[in-house]
Structures are given as C-alpha cells and as structure tokens.
C-alpha cells in the first residue's frame, strides 16, 4: 500500500449540546413510562415486558458490536481499524445493562410463567432442573461477569497499545477475542433461552439462540453504520470513507439474509411437522399479530435485500444510514413479536405511547454511555500496524 496523506483524527468531545439532546430524549422516555404507570393504568405485565424488551435491546447492541470486533480482530482484518473504537465503546456498555435488567426484575413473575413454582403443570415441572429462579439468577450473573470481563479487558489491551505499542498487546487482543467467541457461541444461545424462549415456557426451538443472535448482530451492525456515517459526516473519523461503509453495508445485507434464513428455517419446520405444542408459537403470532408478523419479514428481509443490493447503495452514507435505521426498527419489532405474545397476550398489548416513548430513554442512555467511552480514548487506535491499510484500502 502506498502511503498517502492520511489526516489525523480529531479527538472527540462529548459536547453539552449533545448531552442536552440526549437528556431531552431520555426525559421523553421517562415521561412516557410515568404516564403509562400512573395515568394510563396499563396492565403491569405490559410495563414489565416493555422494560424487559428495552433492556434486552440495550445489551444486544453492545454484545453484537463486541462480537463483530472480536471476529474482526481474530481474523486480523485490517479495514476495521478506523471504526474499531466505535465497536469497543459500544461493547463497554454491556456492564451497564445489568441496571436495566435489575430494574425489570420485580416483574419476573409477570413475565415468566415458570417462576410460579406453586402451580406448574407437568411439562414445566419436568423443566425445573433448568428453569428455576436460583439457577437462572446464577446464569444471569455468569453471563454478565463473562461478557463484562471480555469487554473491559479487550478495551484495556487496545488502549494500552496506544501509549506503548507492543506486539504482545495485539497478540493478547487476538487470543482473547478467540476465547470470547468460544464463550459467546454458548452463552448467546443459553441467554436467548433464558431471557426470551422461556417466556413461552412450554414451547421450544433448537435454533432459537441463533435466531436471536442473528437479530442481535444485525441491530448492532445497523447502529455501527449509523454512528460511522454520522462520525464521517461530522469529521470525527476523517479516514472513514465509502469503502468502510461499503463493507459494513455488505455485512448488513448479508446478515439480514442470514436472519431471514433462520427465521424461515424455524417457521418452515414447525409449519411442516405441524405438532400442536410447537405450532402454538406461530398460531398465536399469525392469528393475533398478523400484520406485524408479515411486516417483520418485509422490513427485516425484503427491504434490506432490495435496498442494499447495488454497490452504489452501500457506498452512499445517508442512504445506507436511513436503511440501517429502518432495519434497526425492524429488529425492535422482531423482539416485540418474540416477547409480547407470550408475556402479555394479545388482549392487553398494543403499540402505544409506552412502546414508542420508552425506547428513547434506553437509546439516550446507550448513546450517552457510548459517547462517554468514545471520548475517553483516541478516536482511532494509535500506533496500530494496520492503520495505513485501513485508511487507504479499496473494495473491488
């Protein structure tokens, strides 16, 4: 690679204006929650389910970004160095998700049928070996301890290399990334069982973990794209160009198809074998959530498939960011469809002020944490051997 004039990234400042905007968004979210609790008199399970759904989305964004970074680090990909700090900072929000989960803990009885140990039917009785509250809590603590450790340790190694560049930090980064992927492969599935699949405790699907993972990964990619495009626009990351967005767009395109593949695989087999205890999941969703059920597939598969097909679409920052925002909404809807029918039931759920307002609070919290962590380190890893290539590579 020939050396060109590569501009130095400007240190990022989490300004007051940004803080005020995020504060307003968080305020709207809180007001929506308060109105829902005190004025609308919504059923308690609907409020808990919303808190639960947003906490999940919060941790999914961090986890997906951490996973994307570790995969790229393990594969020694060079292109991602310029956007690496975005993924790092998103990953660091994982420990804070505990707060949001704990905020929803009082509603566990409303959310999970299997927590009512006093009257369980035979089927749930047989599942108590795995689905019991102490073991569930233990797993919860284990997941967060594990993910937080990796997020913080990897970030530490990455920042250390900024100040005293040594091969051993990069080697540790690579090796630890590999270990994270090993643990994440298992915990992403089991966490999806614990937190989402066990809402419909009688029902099970063997690829549910993958299905949730694919949605998580696409949502995180969408957020990375939006942030990268915005940072490019505001000159915070001057070396991010259409090539990086092109690659991110390819990921978004490809993994939207991957999501659709898993969605169909789950649906097709259950539809085909037609066993009542399995079909109940889809009967509930097609009968009572019919429109949303099909909108989900259109927004998350058909739309990105057609919108991101051409090369030009992936290289146009504004266009790509708009597609990413729509896909992010789509995966929020996907999560809604995974939680609400089981936890709340169709009689009590609708999309109202709570569903639209509350995410703003979590989004503002996520972005505030993200900006705080992004501000703490250099916007692009310094002294990284791949930096020049990441700033001057070209897609074929």
């Amino acid at each position, binding site marked *: 690679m*020939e050396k060109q004039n590569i501009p130095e990234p400007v240190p990022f400042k989490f300004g007051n204006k940004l803080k005020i905007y995020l504060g307003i968004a968080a305020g709207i979210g809180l007001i929506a929650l308060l109105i829902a609790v005190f004025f609308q008199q919504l059923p308690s399970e609907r409020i808990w389910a919303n808190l639960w759904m947003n906490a999940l989305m919060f941790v999914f964004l961090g986890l997906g970004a951490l996973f994307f970074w570790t995969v790229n680090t393990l594969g020694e990909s060079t292109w991602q160095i310029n956007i690496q700090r975005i993924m790092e900072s998103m990953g660091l929000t994982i420990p804070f998700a505990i707060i949001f989960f704990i905020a929803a803990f009082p509603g566990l009885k409303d959310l999970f049928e299997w927590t009512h140990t006093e009257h369980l039917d035979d089927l749930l009785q047989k599942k108590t070996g795995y689905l019991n509250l102490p073991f569930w809590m233990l797993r919860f603590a284990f997941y967060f301890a594990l993910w937080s450790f990796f997020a913080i340790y990897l970030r530490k190694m990455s920042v250390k290399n900024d100040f005293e560049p040594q091969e051993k930090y990069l080697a540790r980064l690579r090796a630890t990334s590999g270990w994270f992927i090993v643990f994440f492969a298992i915990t992403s599935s089991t966490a999806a069982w614990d937190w989402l699949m066990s809402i419909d405790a009688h029902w099970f699907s063997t690829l549910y973990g993958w299905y949730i993972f694919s949605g998580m990964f696409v949502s995180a990619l969408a957020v990375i794209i939006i942030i990268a495009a915005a940072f490019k626009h505001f000159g915070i990351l001057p070396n991010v160009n259409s090539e990086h967005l092109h690659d991110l767009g390819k990921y978004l395109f490809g993994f939207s198809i991957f999501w659709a593949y898993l969605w*169909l695989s789950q*649906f*097709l087999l259950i*539809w*085909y074998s*037609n066993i009542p205890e399995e079909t109940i999941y889809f009967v509930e969703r097609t009968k009572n959530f019919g429109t949303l059920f099909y909108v989900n597939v259109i927004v998350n598969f058909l739309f990105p498939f057609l919108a991101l*097909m*051409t*090369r030009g679409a992936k290289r146009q920052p504004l266009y790509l960011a708009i597609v990413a925002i729509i896909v992010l909404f789509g995966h929020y809807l996907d999560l809604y469809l995974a939680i609400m029918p089981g936890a709340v039931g169709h009689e009590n759920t609708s999309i109202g002020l709570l569903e639209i307002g509350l995410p703003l609070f979590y989004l503002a919290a996520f972005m505030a944490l993200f900006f705080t962590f992004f501000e703490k380190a250099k916007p692009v890893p310094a002294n990284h051997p791949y930096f020049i290539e990441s700033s001057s590579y*070209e897609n*074929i």
Partner: protein
Amino acid sequence: MGAIVYGHFTDELDLLNAVKELKNKKIHIADVRTPFPVHGLDTALKYPRSHLPKIAFAAGLIGGSLGLLFQIWVFTKGWPLNFGGKPYLSIPSFIPVTFELTVLFAAFAMGIAFLLRSNLGPGKIPNILDDDVTNDHFQVILAAKNNNLSEIELAEALEAAGAIDVKQVNATT
C-alpha cells in the same frame, strides 16, 4: 490487425505506476495480463463498472419466479398431491426450491455471461504472447491501431515507464 507492442513488469506496484504514467500520456492500453488479480488495476485503467451484477439480478429474478410458478402449477394443476393434509398451494414449502433455482440461474447466467463477454470458453485456444506472463510477469499490451504513435514511440513510452522485455509483434487478434 496490425502491430502490437508489449512490455513486462516484475512487480505489481511498478505495473500500477506504469499504467498510470501511460494513461497520463493519453496512450490507449489494449490489455493488461497479470498472473493474479492486482488491486487497484481496474481503477488505474479507468475501466467502467462491470454489468455482471445486473445479469445476475435479472437471471435470479427469472429463475426464482419460474421456480415458484412451476411449483405452483405442479402442485395445483399438474399433479396435486396431498402431503399431510396441507393445502395444495403451500407457499412455505416452495421457498427452498425457489431459493435454490434463484441461485442456480444467477450463478449459471453470470458464468456464461462472463465467458461470452471475455471471449473464453471450452475449445478456446489461448493467445499467449509471451510465456513469462503465465509465470510471474505482468504484461502491458499496446496496440498501434488505437494510438496515434508509431510502434517505436510506443516501445519507447513503455521503456520509459520501466518495462523490461519490450517486444513488437504482428498479432492476429
């Protein structure tokens, strides 16, 4: 077809610089032959974008819709079979085959279109000007008929750009 002049390079960076230099001198480059794909060569040669993706999309669309329509015809009109009490027109079960046919049509159309467009295919006798290009040399080919310069001037331009083994042949293609 007239005389052509070619020169060799042993390094891809030298090749890229030479191509840029020749382009700056407004010399038309007939072809560049390399032992492996060189990053940035397409842009240096100012080639327009390939139309292959459009062919792939069109063929995929044809394959997918043909596959879906054929299955719909077979299972409702041609030879309706009752599978486990499912309706005859069961779109979910048609999706895998539709998907496979989309991929099959797109892949074959791209392969065939590429061979046609590049003048390749079974039975084609390769037109190799110099055996070194099959090993480790990068070859830049200039055709006299495309340029206003004489063969000698073209050879000089190639040598000025750093080419070795500059030769002149009267080629048939």
